[in-house]
């Protein structure tokens, strides 16, 4: 394990994806910008720094609306919902471009440039804290018996905790295929849930009812897959203690 972990690679990534995110021709630009911002946020968390975290959250949020709409538009959609989402995406893109040209972003990049490397020992301590968070979120998923909807909310919280753990382990040079597999299953469920939330934009009841029924069935399937993936991976991820709460 290296003794120190510099921020440089993720910062270079963030800078490198800015032109494509600004140009807006390839959805990957915004996606990769958010990924780099998340990795940096996890690095700051491992370094136990509170400043700049809010700025990275702001950046992810303004890029997030564009990215969420891009992802939804990759799904097969009723025509009117597709055009409504496209109009919203254009508006979100205009806002994103304004923010990417702001002095807040210039300041954020300059400030990140000035940070010294993180010690590997602090990072390892941080990873242990994140494993605990994943364990707690997983136990909440397993205990949730009230409704499928409530359990999906718990799975969403688990997905976010897992993502932080995955990036934290990546900073330590560890790659965990189980973690990635689980994240994919939870990500699919999240994308479908996001789509359902946007259905309110559609006012054609007939089209909405048909599509909503089909979507509900896909969400149920994705929910089952996500739970199965969690139960399959949890022992490997957080040790045996999580298994006892089954």
């Amino acid at each position, binding site marked *: 394990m290296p003794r120190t972990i510099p921020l440089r690679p993720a910062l270079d990534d963030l800078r490198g994806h800015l032109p494509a995110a600004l140009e807006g021709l390839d959805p990957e630009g915004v996606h990769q910008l958010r990924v780099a911002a998340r990795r940096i946020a996890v690095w700051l968390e491992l370094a136990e720094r509170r*400043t700049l975290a809010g700025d990275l959250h702001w950046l992810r949020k303004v890029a997030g609306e564009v990215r969420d709409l891009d992802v939804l538009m990759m799904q097969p959609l009723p025509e009117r919902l597709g055009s409504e989402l496209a109009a919203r995406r254009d508006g979100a893109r205009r806002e994103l471009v304004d923010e990417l040209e702001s002095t807040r972003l210039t300041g954020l990049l300059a400030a990140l440039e000035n940070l010294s490397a993180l010690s590997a020992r602090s990072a390892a301590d941080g990873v242990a804290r994140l494993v605990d968070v994943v364990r707690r979120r997983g136990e909440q998923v397993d205990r949730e018996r009230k409704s499928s909807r409530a359990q999906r909310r718990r799975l969403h919280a688990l997905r976010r905790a897992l993502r932080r753990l995955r990036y934290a382990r990546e900073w330590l040079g560890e790659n965990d295929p189980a973690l990635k597999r689980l994240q994919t299953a939870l990500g699919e469920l999240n994308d479908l849930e996001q789509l359902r939330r946007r259905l309110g934009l559609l006012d054609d009841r007939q089209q909405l009812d048909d599509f909503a029924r089909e979507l509900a069935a896909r969400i149920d399937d994705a929910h089952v897959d996500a739970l199965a993936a969690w139960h399959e991976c949890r022992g490997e991820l957080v040790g045996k203690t999580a298994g006892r709460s089954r």
Partner: protein
Amino acid sequence: MHLHLVRHAIAAERAGAERDAARPLTAEGKRRFRKCARGLGRIGPRYDAIVHSPLLRAVESAELMAGLCDDIRVDDLLARPPGRPLFTLLSELQQQGAERLALVGHQPWLGELAAWLTIGSTEAASSLPLKKGGVIWLEGNPVPGGMVLRASIPPALLRSMR
């Protein structure tokens, strides 16, 4: 609006090829400023926002003020002489409901900003002392000539507030 202009804490001297922007606070600077931050907490309610410069000494000073505010943000405008874009930012924050705001930055720019906001020009900027870790407290509308000086608080006084 209550506006606190906070000068960063004592930073290390520039060593070798190190960039000025990457100079960290000294251990003594951190120890003293932690007490200044505690003093700032004594003289009023929590800040609605803290905006700081991207230079490491300001980032680290803002970090020590993190217990005083939930909304801490960086802005490049605090690493250059004050001008219209900074006044625009202050107005935007005011419109968003910020009534208590702290700016963590550098001299001579904080002094120039104080002069702009109180008398509408930078002519007397250097006559207002602002030591490292000290605060200029202004109140009013954050436009040139729109604020009054409430206090200029040296770091020793902030540290003594218990």
